[in-house]
């Protein structure tokens, strides 16, 4: 009897401890959720040390997570939170006469996510940043990717002095932030380089061209016979998935007002008969969709069908070569 009582008491104690442990964990989660600015000590990069000569840091480093990112960038927040955003660190640097630079350091979790938000927001006709794989500058700002980080440096007025200061900050930041040097975006090498508009490659992580299932999709601009044309490609897990996705996207185009049309180019014409390639008239633009191996690819909203078909052929040949070599 004594032994049984002892066992049941131990059992009750164990169960109680487990229940209290669960309640404690719930409480801790609530505390962490409701205190968005709590960060682990040593986790916030030392941005104050980036202060360039002749500047001061008039404020502390601000930290934002997905719960309160909107408090800093408002309506733009979902663009980041839906792309793997983890944290934003911001820091201001003040010069003379109200000169101000603001640094936005977005931790996007990985290189791919950082490249996505960088590429989608990239301004056209900008100057590439030297010694930077993904980076550009405008008359008052710098934008670049460094590993898992997407970085913006914005000056509140235009001047060479501020540009130089931002370049200095960017350099120091790259030296300070540890990144995975081996990370790369493999799909970038899949794009035909001839006639490509430099720096035009974008990565859509989701909802590409308004189609929910078209995830992890790259697009790029080409100049074909003087016409600007957008091509796209997405690498799926296998050929079956790619084929299914190509068909789904085709159905999506039809459901939204597209209609199938004939090819102009006889080379692509023979391809249409044999493979999944389809050409659509989509509100007086040309849309082309096909799959080859694990790739879904095509042309998006081209104004000129002939140029669109030429680009599609370029993509097909390049991707077919990739598939064959494997």
């Amino acid at each position, binding site marked *: 009897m004594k032994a049984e009582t002892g066992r049941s008491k131990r059992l009750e104690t164990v169960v109680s401890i487990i229940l209290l442990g669960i309640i404690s964990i719930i409480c801790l989660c609530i505390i962490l959720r409701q205190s968005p600015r709590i960060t682990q000590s040593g986790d916030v990069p030392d941005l104050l040390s980036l202060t360039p000569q002749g500047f001061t840091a008039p404020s502390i480093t601000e930290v934002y997570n997905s719960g309160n990112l909107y*408090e800093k960038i408002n309506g733009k927040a979902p663009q980041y939170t839906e792309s793997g955003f983890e944290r934003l660190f911001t820091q201001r640097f003040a010069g003379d006469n109200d000169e101000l630079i603001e640094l936005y350091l977005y931790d996007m979790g990985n290189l791919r996510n950082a490249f996505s938000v960088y590429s989608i927001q990239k*301004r056209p006709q900008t100057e590439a940043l030297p010694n930077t794989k993904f980076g550009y500058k405008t*008359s008052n700002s710098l934008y670049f990717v460094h590993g898992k980080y997407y970085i913006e440096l914005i000056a*509140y007025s235009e001047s060479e002095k501020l540009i130089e200061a931002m370049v200095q900050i960017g350099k120091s930041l790259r030296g300070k932030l540890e990144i995975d040097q081996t990370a790369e975006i493999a799909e970038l090498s899949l794009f035909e380089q001839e006639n490509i508009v430099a720096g035009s490659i974008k990565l859509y992580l989701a909802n590409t061209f308004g189609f929910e299932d078209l995830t992890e999709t790259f697009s790029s601009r080409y100049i074909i016979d003087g016409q600007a044309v957008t091509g796209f490609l997405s690498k799926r897990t296998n050929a079956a998935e790619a084929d299914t996705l190509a068909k789904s996207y085709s159905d999506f185009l039809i459901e939204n007002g597209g209609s199938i049309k004939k090819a102009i180019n006889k080379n692509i014409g023979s391809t249409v008969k044999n493979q999944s390639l389809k050409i659509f008239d989509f509100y007086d633009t040309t849309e082309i969709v096909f799959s080859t191996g694990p790739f879904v690819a095509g042309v998006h909203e081209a104004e000129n069908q002939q140029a669109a078909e030429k680009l599609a052929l370029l993509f097909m040949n390049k991707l077919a070569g990739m598939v064959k070599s494997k």
Partner: protein
Amino acid sequence: MTKRTQSKIDRRRFLSRSAKAAASIAAAGIVAATLYDKEGPRTGIGSDELVTLRDFSVEHRPGKIMSVVKGPDRTGAVNQALDLLGGIERFVSQGDTVAIKPNVAFASSAMLGATSNPELVAEVVRLCYARGKAKKVFVLDNPINDPASCFRWSGIGKAVSQVGGKVILPRESMFRHTSLEGGKLIRNWPIFSEPLEKVDKLIGIAVVKDHQHSRASMTMKNWYGLLGGRRNIFHQDINTIIAELAMLVKPTLVILDGIQTMITNGPTGGSLSDLKQTNTLIASCDMVAADSYGCGLLGLKPSDLPYLGKAENAGVGTTDYESLKPMLAI
């Protein structure tokens, strides 16, 4: 051991365990009370505690509901736009207390175009005093970033003070709960309304901006700056909230600054290359009409902005701004 000893021991154990359980429950209760979020959504607010925003609108005069001025100079354009509608005197009377609600959402320089231009805001304040003979002009907003920083870095705080206007920074005590009759989203929601209880006229000054969510931010979206609470949840139904704001707020006049338009990367922008010189300023008693004209500066049509249709269907205004025969000046 006898049965009696066993039961005594059981009772003792029972009482001991009961006391421990009670202590645990009490401790849990104390922790819960400490963590209780007082700022959480209020429910059960009596209808007599809800405020209703006043109707600040003035009578529409046919042919003088909307004006559009083309040109690069904001100060000149706003004077001309107002004169085409009858002058500021038509809207602001002697002795009036006026509230101006510009876009001061971000702590960023006016140069970046994410906030209302300080010179424009100051000119409207000056006109209210100089020609409208206003008694007092307040300038207010509930910005996204820290309010004091926003008024400082946008330049609006300084510009307004220099012409005798008074900036009102939001404080919790200035928010009152309101419900929009028939509204889906604005129900028992805090708005920055206490300063508006003391004013006679309300003027909105907005910029034309691309917006990541709503595609455009103009005069109707400008009223987002009166919302309190965790208003970001409304982004999930952005078109409805903008339409409801336009139904809730009935201003005297709106001014839409399209002298420079943020055509991409809105609402924050960041690069000067996000801006395009569009040299257009609109003054209007009809927000829907103003925004319908303004969206053209972004390369959009009114049909591209669902909130315009929603507001029009609710009777707020018309997307057919041509029917108002707007006064044009080039």
